[in-house]
């Protein structure tokens, strides 16, 4: 058993955005955060139906749908999302990838996700391009993890197990400690 915390993945091709017949969901240019326009939603629940991660919820009192807002007011101020900051174990990192196609070695997120592939997207086979990446838990059998994260699980685990000897990660991700990846102080 293990706990998999999930938030809205603020996908590259959000199913919720495509499903809304009124275009009441949009993805921001400045930070890629996907939002429901709370004044425009009429509560059709097409987005609720469409999201494969089921991260849009219909609000019975408002009679409109709502979802994780990526803490965009905090992100606009240069802070991380509240769920990232509140994590007691400090196991969440929040930042920007450079682009999907041209990762830079000096961006720690590009490095972990795109270059070293130590963190993997959840259920990538849904095709929405989720932007929350998971370092697979070492104690969970590969077979189980592969149906969630795909075939890169074994290699990701190896990278993680080998962290204390991995000079490249220590250089590229300055906050890495010998016992694991640690988020940078704010």
């Amino acid at each position, binding site marked *: 058993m293990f706990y998999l915390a999930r938030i809205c993945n603020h996908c590259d091709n959000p199913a919720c955005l495509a*499903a809304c*017949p*009124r*275009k009441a969901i949009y993805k921001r240019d400045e930070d890629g955060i996907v939002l429901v326009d*709370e*004044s*425009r*939603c*009429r*509560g*059709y*629940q*097409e987005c*609720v139906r469409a999201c494969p991660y089921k991260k849009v*919820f*219909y*609000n*019975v*009192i*408002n*009679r*409109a749908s*709502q979802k994780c807002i990526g803490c965009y007011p905090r992100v606009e101020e240069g802070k991380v999302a509240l769920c990232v900051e509140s994590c007691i174990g400090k196991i969440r990192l929040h930042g920007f990838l450079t682009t999907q196609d041209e990762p830079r070695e000096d961006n720690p997120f590009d490095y972990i996700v795109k270059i070293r592939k130590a963190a993997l997207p959840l259920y990538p086979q849904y095709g929405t391009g989720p932007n929350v990446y998971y370092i697979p838990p070492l104690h969970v059998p590969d077979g189980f993890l592969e149906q969630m994260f795909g075939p890169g699980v074994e290699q990701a685990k190896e990278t993680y197990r080998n962290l204390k000897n991995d000079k490249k990660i220590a250089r590229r991700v300055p906050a890495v400690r010998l016992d694991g990846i640690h988020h940078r102080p704010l």
Partner: protein
Amino acid sequence: MRFAYQGLAILFIGALLLASGCGAKSGPSAAMDDAAAVDKTWPPKGQVPELALTPADKLVVVRTAEKLATDNPYAKFWQDAPYLDVPVLKQNVASPQLAEASVASVRVQAVTDGDNVAWRLSWDDPTPDGVVDSGQFSDGVAIEFPIDLGAIPMMGHRGAKVQILYWKAQWQKDLDVGFQDVQDLHPNYWADLYWFAEGEFPYPIPQAFEDPRSLQWFIAHEAGNPMAVFSRTQPVEELVAEGFGTLTHQPESASRGKGVWTDGRWAVVITRPLKTSDPLDHQFAADGPEQVAFAVWQGSDENVGGRKHWTNWIPFTVQP
């Protein structure tokens, strides 16, 4: 050291339990006692009169000398308005589509007293659906008129608007038995606290939410969403559209209505002045060509939005 913390936690929780034990009755049982006093049966039980209706082969808005009732689809004057049964089609032109129709036709009647026009729509529906929750949808019916000549009946098109008068069973239920809150849909639901709300559970909406700070988490309401209205006065909404996805709520509405479900059939009356000064209202003309279209939603069949039954333009005349 660990065990000491656990010990402390148990002590703390114990103290809390002791403190809340005495005093006034609180909790779900108290709420249930109060709820039993108010009759929340819906649709409301009651006899409706038998109406002797006569069929017609065209749609005519019949002139009557009586003052029109805006809230009674079983008023006697409906017997003077011959009906047209209009077949409805499943909407399968634009996504999201309706896969299977569950309504065959809608019965249409219309009456005018020279100032207002009243439309009566009735159709078979074995279940009255006024609850909207995750995966559950409301019954509804809508009347559509062109605002601009030549507008297509499928929500109008760019450059040619339509006006839509929309009745929703959920809003009818809000008016009949009170605003449908979470505890009406889920009787065993319980909320400890709503910050800045008055009193205690069940925190009736809107009375417990006078303090503006208590509304901050009702985000659609705070954003001015017309769906998030807590004190609705009519179950009918006026809308304008100019093509798929452009449906827009009209803040000023002269439309009134009421829907009554009885014995497997909905009957809904929607009334409106013949003429208004709103440029986004259709203006009824006694001499001109008139067209109307209808849409019906069967909530128990997951009908919502574009998953609906619709009709093409039906010509009608208004008796002077």
